[in-house]
């Protein structure tokens, strides 16, 4: 009879210890997770990469800007309208192999460049179109694997569109996904 009572006391204590143990385990897990969170293993350079790509497309002789063959000079804020239309109408991978070529596969960056002119239809040019089409939905939080897996950077530049000798104001919209 006495022994049974003692057993009851022991098992009762064990039952009381269970929440304590669960709490201790939770605290230890929290400490481990916190420490792991504070250890940075990678550096996010997507914003810089996006800025550099825009600069390369604007400053390179084989980019979007007008290039004077005689002077061998690029006019960074002047967009060659004929070249832009050719890039838009031709192969969508034309730009990938010119000013910024990552080789056969580019898992780093993609972009959509839109030239907006008053009274004219918008003209789109793509950089790494295949990836852009795949990544664009993933910039939305409502899509599975979206918001965070890839990031979209938008930039707007006021430029001049050169059509022959005529210069007209335009806006160049960059939507870079990295």
């Amino acid at each position: 009879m006495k022994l049974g009572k003692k057993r009851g006391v022991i098992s009762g204590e064990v039952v009381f210890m269970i929440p304590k143990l669960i709490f201790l385990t939770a605290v230890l897990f929290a400490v481990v997770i916190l420490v792991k969170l504070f250890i940075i293993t990678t550096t996010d350079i997507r914003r810089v990469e996006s800025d550099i790509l825009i600069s390369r497309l604007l400053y390179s002789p084989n980019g979007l800007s007008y290039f004077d063959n005689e002077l061998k000079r690029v006019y960074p804020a002047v967009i060659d309208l004929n070249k832009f239309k050719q890039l838009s109408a031709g192969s969508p991978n034309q730009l990938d192999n010119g000013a910024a070529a990552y080789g056969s596969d580019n898992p780093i960056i993609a972009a959509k460049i839109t030239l907006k002119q008053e009274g004219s239809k918008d003209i789109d040019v793509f950089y790494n179109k295949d990836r852009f089409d795949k990544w664009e939905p993933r910039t939305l939080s409502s899509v599975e694997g979206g918001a965070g897996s890839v990031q979209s950077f938008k930039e707007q530049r006021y430029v001049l569109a050169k059509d022959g000798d005529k210069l007209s104001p335009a806006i160049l919209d960059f939507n870079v996904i990295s």
Partner: protein
Amino acid sequence: MSSKKRGLQIIFSNRRGMTNELFFNIFELVLAFIVILALFNFVNGVVKQTIFEKDYLARDLALLVSTLYAAPGQVTYSYNENSKDSSFVSAFMQNKVEVYEKGEAEQSRISYPFAENKNIMFRYNSLENDKGAVSIEFHKSDNSISVTK
């Protein structure tokens, strides 16, 4: 007052209960100690590793090459970075920079891609740096980019 008396009575009369509680407390302490020890070991391991440094260097060098391509005209840039106790090798290859320690296995090497420009030739090179510093000279002319120590 009466409850205090009863509490004392329980402690002195129920020795088995106290032993169990003590055992559980010791078990908790041992568990916490093991986890903290494992955590310290993990953090120590991360500190000793050079993965972060290699990754940082590879990304930084790839960004620098991309920036040089974006810059019009001629550029000479001297890149200097503290590498603490490690001596890194920076290998500039087609469309990528690979950073690793001397004699390191291929699987442990860290690389990062950069975009080339067909009009500007990149002279690929592998540079071995001494312990403590990474020092690379970049030269960009109108039609080529070269890297030297």
